[in-house]
């Protein structure tokens, strides 16, 4: 038996469920120095905005127990640069390209979707309604149902590309947010983005990040992410991309068993840029060991009476 790792993500079929997360793999070139991108299910490139953004002043990152805080502030050269300078190379890499977009207004999300609709080689758009590190737009959209719905439907109307809405975990009721996105036309959901956190240097009394607060990611947040994927998977029918603290196959399996169709690796790349390969291999081993032919059969297979 050769296990079938391919998964369907709405209209997309991925050769395996292991993707790399937005903001943690740049636009692929540096990561390709460490592993062939074609080994991935897909790549989600850095959050892209309409106009170039300089990002936040340093320090932008701080390590926390089994996690890290970041406040990059969406530094990127804008969507035109993406199309002209980054997509051409990426298209050659034999990997589905998902573009993570971030608007400051609903209109900007629509405009980004419209521009990328015409860009060859884009497999899907991921809507970053949940970045905690920018003031205008950013998280504001992601923490109320109307924001999530408006952004999702604006993008939906502006493109024929599959739409993945990426949800913020900084909410009381993640299921409500998920329903809002699905009702507004999302083909899939990504969860979770980072938890809003903060750290302070007692010696200087200054925040560890120049931005004061930042997004918490890494193994520390995995229990929260798995819980949210589980809650949402039982409530909506669209495929879910699970992420938050994955760096090994066992972690990916937690998300898949909780109901995710695919997973993303973010912070895990920083400690080991080749870990996606190990995760794919580990999933294959697991399927062989447990006699699972199609990975889809494992999705949502939690053994628990609720």
């Amino acid at each position, binding site marked *: 038996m050769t296990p079938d790792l391919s998964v369907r993500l709405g209209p997309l079929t991925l050769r395996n469920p292991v993707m790399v997360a937005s903001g943690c793999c740049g636009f692929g070139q540096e990561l390709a120095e460490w592993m062939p991108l074609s080994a991935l299910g897909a790549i989600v490139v850095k959050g892209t905005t309409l106009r170039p953004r300089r990002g936040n002043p340093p*320090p*932008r990152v701080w*390590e926390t127990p089994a996690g890290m805080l970041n406040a*990059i502030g969406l530094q990127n050269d804008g969507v035109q640069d993406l199309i002209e300078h980054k997509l051409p*190379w990426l298209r050659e890499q034999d990997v589905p390209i998902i573009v993570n977009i971030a608007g400051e207004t609903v209109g900007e999300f629509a405009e980004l979707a419209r521009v990328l609709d015409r860009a060859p080689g884009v497999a899907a758009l991921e809507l970053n309604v949940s970045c905690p590190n920018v003031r205008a737009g950013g998280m504001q959209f992601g923490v109320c149902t109307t924001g999530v719905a408006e952004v999702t439907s604006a993008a939906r109307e502006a493109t024929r590309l599959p739409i993945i809405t990426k949800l913020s975990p900084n909410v009381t009721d993640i299921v409500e947010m998920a329903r809002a996105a699905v009702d507004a036309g999302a083909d899939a959901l990504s969860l979770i983005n980072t938890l809003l956190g903060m750290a302070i240097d007692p010696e200087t009394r200054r925040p560890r990040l120049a931005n004061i607060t930042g997004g918490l990611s890494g*193994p520390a947040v995995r229990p929260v992410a798995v819980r949210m994927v589980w809650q949402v998977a039982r409530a909506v029918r669209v495929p879910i991309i699970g992420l938050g603290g994955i760096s090994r196959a066992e972690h990916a399996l937690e998300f898949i068993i909780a109901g995710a169709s695919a997973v993303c690796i973010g912070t895990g790349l920083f400690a*080991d840029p080749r870990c996606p390969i190990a995760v794919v291999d580990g999933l294959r081993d697991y399927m062989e060991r447990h006699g699972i032919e199609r990975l889809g059969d494992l999705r949502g297979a939690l053994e628990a009476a609720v």
Partner: protein
Amino acid sequence: MSEGAPRPGQDHYVAQVRTNIGVADGHRLLTLICPEVAQTAVPGQFLQIRVSVSGQDPLLRRPICVAAAREDEVDIVVRVAGRGTDLLARETPGAFVDLLGPLGRGFTRPGRHEPVALVGGGVGVAPLHFLLTSLADPSRVRVLLGARTRALLPRQPGLSGLEGLRIATDDGSEGHHGTAADLLAGVLETDPPHRVYACGPQPMLAAVARLCIQRRIVCEVSLEERMACGIGVCMGCAVPMAGGGYTRACREGPVYDARAVKWE
């Protein structure tokens, strides 16, 4: 270099610790067996070293400069600054260290007989030492080292005997009572070099950069920004540029032309 292809020697290695010796208070010099890095690293480049057993806590690797390279081994000098460097400084001979490297952009090699000055503060001497050993003609080199106090001056083998060596300490416990930048100011008066290379704490680098820019002397600085990935994918290590915007210390740096950097 074609896009997406690894840079020379750059890979994921597990290197054995050959020796671990003290070179100053809270500073250890570790020799790691890693032929590939030894043969490809350029002075100014760094390694991303895993400091945890399990890799979950501390989660991130720590950037450490290559301090010397010989055939099959490289030296690093570790200053215990916190939990991660403390773990690393305790690695015993025979232990294995997991590292990515060599990473980043190193120093521009000077012309064969070009007079240069190396200005180092504290553990910043490490990459300068590597640069020194790689020079064709070390006789034209001045090495200006500063530290807070005598006990914190890293005694790296190969430095002590050097003719062009000058020391400064903030408390006057050895050499000039003052900073390495003071020493440079003096040198620039009397016998200016063609190029200055500097590595050390931010205020020292800013002072050195100012001196060199004023006198239009080419100056390269190695900057220590906090890093998450070290390989260019996270945008965590932002260095403000004179022309506006930020570049990545781990990729466009850690070595920069002093004029390119925006100094506070």
